[in-house]
């Protein structure tokens, strides 16, 4: 295929993309003449180029489309959704022809008479005369004074050289409709007020466009990719040199090296920026999708876009395109209600989907929010039980937020299941997987009746990442810094200690138990040496937080991620490999893979440490319970996850406020409650307390003794007649009462605990 044709294809595809967007905008505001002018010009260019290159089929289709657009512009035709749909169809058809042209190198055989006929029929059918009452509001704008300059602008294309008189002559018939009579009256005069004003616009716009064209060039993507690889190598070599310099005593290389380092950084910056593209490119198709969905479903949806000029790496852009499209479609399809439902719910008939992108701390945030019906937590709960993703007791201990996370689970993704649950979440697990593959995270919050918010956080670029270098069993590994939330040093002397519950290691991290994975055992490099000080990388994957135990932590380094050889791809724990500044090769750990192992492989870890409610890989149905006795001999149980701490306070330290027992706990007053009203408080000695924590406030439940921790699949067998009990079940072979912690918490703190957790995305 020759270069000319290639260029034509690229250019025309771009134009078609713009046309899509502009048409949807135009349909909404059919009085905006600049948009229409732009649309007409684009279509005209396509037609013209097709004619020039000898592509009769394309030319004919474009011509038909241009015809209709011309009539829109001249006010001869009303702008109706049907007509716009037809133009969009025409654009799609051109696109299809182009694809065939690209594949075959020549215009495909065939006829487009059907489509052209349809378009022509529309072009001839509706006269613009504002006869119908409904069309009254849309037609006049094309005729009033704002409509006037468009005509002039069109003419400007052909009649640049024409003198104002001639232009005036052509446009004069319209002048009487203009509401400015002073402008209309001197119309026959050689220098009227309105016409030069109209003509003035065109050269300015043209000058701007050509300036833009001169300041940008088209570069083949491969060239940039290659440049990026070279820069990556340069960065590595620079790092290597810096490392050598650090070991050297003499300082003669110091200054030039620093300069080299500086230049390399700038070069890296520059090339990275070269790969940057506005995120709007990934959004370009979305208005069209929403528009089509509106037409199909009869909904009214407004797509608000903010921050479309936020730039991110081309590669990242490609990878989020599909998830974004999917999510917008979800929002429009299932999130936004029909106009009638919306009005019934006291909302405006037209729904709003807001798409927003912004930079923050080396990351791009994309926020997709709708003001639709939100997710139905109760139904997700039911579905989670039905699908065997969680047991009732599991769900009882989960916050609404945690329950919502189920839509990201694979089991929730198949269409039938989901539509019956909430009509949402089709393929949300795929979206999450895609986002996580590029090192991003996704969060979601939903309020029933008020809408749903998704927040995606993705790195700016994939090629070079900042990584933490760690060592285990004498071998170094890199961990992408985005996955490390914090570092904890655990040792015999430091306050943090690694504790074990039947071979499973945990760490008390502030108010929760953090399950730990030993990198050493995970990678089969021997057993942990518990006498040494170790470091814990607190990592988060999805909403699952866990700790990775390593021997040492070095500094952070900028690394170039290289994919591992195909032979090594069978191992889930590596995200790639890289060459460090000192020339050594090290493996980059994949927190996603490790999280998987933390949930699946380490059975002991599972059994004792429990899940995190939304952790992805734990075996479903099992729950860890803390067994205790309080008030009677019967065993009672609460989900271990709900328990923040088990404390023992001396009875003498229990005070009373407002007739209720409290203890001073971590500088706050913690209310104590007993599970039975008839609980007899101890007179002296120690009182074991289970501490529950919600929204930063603690509640203590006085118990007689803590018996055990059991992990079991719990099925509630007897429904209780008593408040505060979820029911009774067999736990570890014994009949046990399951305590409804939420009930007790709510009873004691109805006001302050009633509120939900804020979603971190909203706080950000």
């Amino acid at each position: 295929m020759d270069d000319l044709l290639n260029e034509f294809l690229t250019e025309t595809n771009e134009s078609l993309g713009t046309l899509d967007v502009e048409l949807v905008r135009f349909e909404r505001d059919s009085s905006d003449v600049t948009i229409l002018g732009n649309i007409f010009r684009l279509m005209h260019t396509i037609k013209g180029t097709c004619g020039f290159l000898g592509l009769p089929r394309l030319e004919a289709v474009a011509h038909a489309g241009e015809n209709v657009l011309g009539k829109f512009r001249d006010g001869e035709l009303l702008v109706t959704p049907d007509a716009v749909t037809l133009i969009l169809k025409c654009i799609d058809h051109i696109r299809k022809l182009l694809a065939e042209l690209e594949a075959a190198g020549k215009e495909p055989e065939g006829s487009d008479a059907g489509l052209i006929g349809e378009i022509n029929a529309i072009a001839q059918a509706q006269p613009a005369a504002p006869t119908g009452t409904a069309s009254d509001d849309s037609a006049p704008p094309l005729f009033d004074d704002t409509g006037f300059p468009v005509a002039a602008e069109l003419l400007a294309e052909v009649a640049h050289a024409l003198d104002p008189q001639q232009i005036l002559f052509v446009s004069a018939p319209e002048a009487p409709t203009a509401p400015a009579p002073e402008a209309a009256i001197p119309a026959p005069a050689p220098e009227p007020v309105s016409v030069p004003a109209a003509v003035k616009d065109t050269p300015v716009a043209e000058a701007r466009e050509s300036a833009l064209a001169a300041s940008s060039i088209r570069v083949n993507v491969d060239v940039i990719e290659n440049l990026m690889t070279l820069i990556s190598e340069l960065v590595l070599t620079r790092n290597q040199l810096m490392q050598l310099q650090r070991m050297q005593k003499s300082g003669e290389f110091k200054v030039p090296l620093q300069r080299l380092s500086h230049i390399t950084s700038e070069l890296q910056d520059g090339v990275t920026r070269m790969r940057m593209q506005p995120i709007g490119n990934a959004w370009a198709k979305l208005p069209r999708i929403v528009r089509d969905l509106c037409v199909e479903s009869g909904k009214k949806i407004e797509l608000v876009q903010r921050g479309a000029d936020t730039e991110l790496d081309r590669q990242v852009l490609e990878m989020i395109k599909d998830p974004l499209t999917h999510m917008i479609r979800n929002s429009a399809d299932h999130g936004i209600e029909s106009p009638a439902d919306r009005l019934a719910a006291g909302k405006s008939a037209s729904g709003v989907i807001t798409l927003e992108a912004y930079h923050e701390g080396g990351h791009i945030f994309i926020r997709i929010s709708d003001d639709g019906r939100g997710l139905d937590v109760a139904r997700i709960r039911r579905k989670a039980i039905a699908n065997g993703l969680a047991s009732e007791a599991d769900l009882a201990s989960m916050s609404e937020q945690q329950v919502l996370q189920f839509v990201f689970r694979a089991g929730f993704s198949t269409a039938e299941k989901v539509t019956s649950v909430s009509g949402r979440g089709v393929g949300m697990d795929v979206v999450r997987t895609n986002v996580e593959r590029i090192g991003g995270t996704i969060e979601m919050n939903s309020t029933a009746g008020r809408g749903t918010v998704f927040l995606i956080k993705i790195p700016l670029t994939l090629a070079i990442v900042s990584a933490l270098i760690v060592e285990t069993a004498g071998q170094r590994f890199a961990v992408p810094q985005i996955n490390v939330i914090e570092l904890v040093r655990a040792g015999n002397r430091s306050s943090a200690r690694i504790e074990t519950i039947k071979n499973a290691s945990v760490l008390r991290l502030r108010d929760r138990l953090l399950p730990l994975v030993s990198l050493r055992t995970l990678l089969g490099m021997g057993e942990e040496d518990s006498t040494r000080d170790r470091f814990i990388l607190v990592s988060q994957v999805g909403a699952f937080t866990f700790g990775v135990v390593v021997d040492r932590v070095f500094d952070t380094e900028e690394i170039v991620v290289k994919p591992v050889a195909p032979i090594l791809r069978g191992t889930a724990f590596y995200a790639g490999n890289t060459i460090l500044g000192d020339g050594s090769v090290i493996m980059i750990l994949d927190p996603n893979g490790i999280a998987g192992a933390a949930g699946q492989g380490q059975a002991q870890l599972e059994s004792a440490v429990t899940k995190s409610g939304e952790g992805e890989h734990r075996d479903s149905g099992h729950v860890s319970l803390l067994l205790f006795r309080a008030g009677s001999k019967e065993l009672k149980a609460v989900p271990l996850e709900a328990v923040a701490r088990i404390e023992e306070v001396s009875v003498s330290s229990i005070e009373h406020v407002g007739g209720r027992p409290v203890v001073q706990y971590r500088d706050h007053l913690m209310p104590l409650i007993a599970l039975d009203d008839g609980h007899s408080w101890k007179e002296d000695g120690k009182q074991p307390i289970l501490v529950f924590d919600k929204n930063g406030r603690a509640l203590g439940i006085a118990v007689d003794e803590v018996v055990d921790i059991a992990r079991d699949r719990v099925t509630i067998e007897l429904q209780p007649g008593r408040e505060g009990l979820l029911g009774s079940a067999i736990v570890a072979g014994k009949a046990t009462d399951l305590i409804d912690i939420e009930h007790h918490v709510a009873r004691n703190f109805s006001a302050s605990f009633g509120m939900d957790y804020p979603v971190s995305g909203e706080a950000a």
Partner: protein
Amino acid sequence: MTEQAQTDTGEGLTAFVTFSVADHYFGVPVSRVQDILTPDTIASVPLGPAEVRGLINLRGRIVTVIDVRTRLSLGASAAAGPRKCVTVESEGEFYTLLVDSVGDVVSLKEICREPNPATLDPLWCEVANGVFRAGEKLLVTLDVERLLNIRGKA
């Protein structure tokens, strides 16, 4: 050893880079070999396939080291002595074959190639594509692609 250090593959001649592993004598076509080196530090890959000894840095490229001894189940590696690496390329990736020592390049007539003996270990049959009588020794020629086709390869 036939000292015909011809690298060109003229009439019916194929040039092989020869190397030895556990007193066996092997050859791979010269055209497949990129580089011969003495490995410096090999970074191991925990949980990787047994045949993968680790990774090395070859002038800024990460190269996977395949232990031929393990690959051909020739027992545990002899601990002592410097070893050599024969680097080959496959599907855009670089691999290097860890061997005991590297010998000369020999050119052998295709007509001297004998098929694998029927009694040859099935594992070897899979990776060998013939045997040459090279002087006193037998030279087993290896098919690089099949040699690199290790379980665990995705």
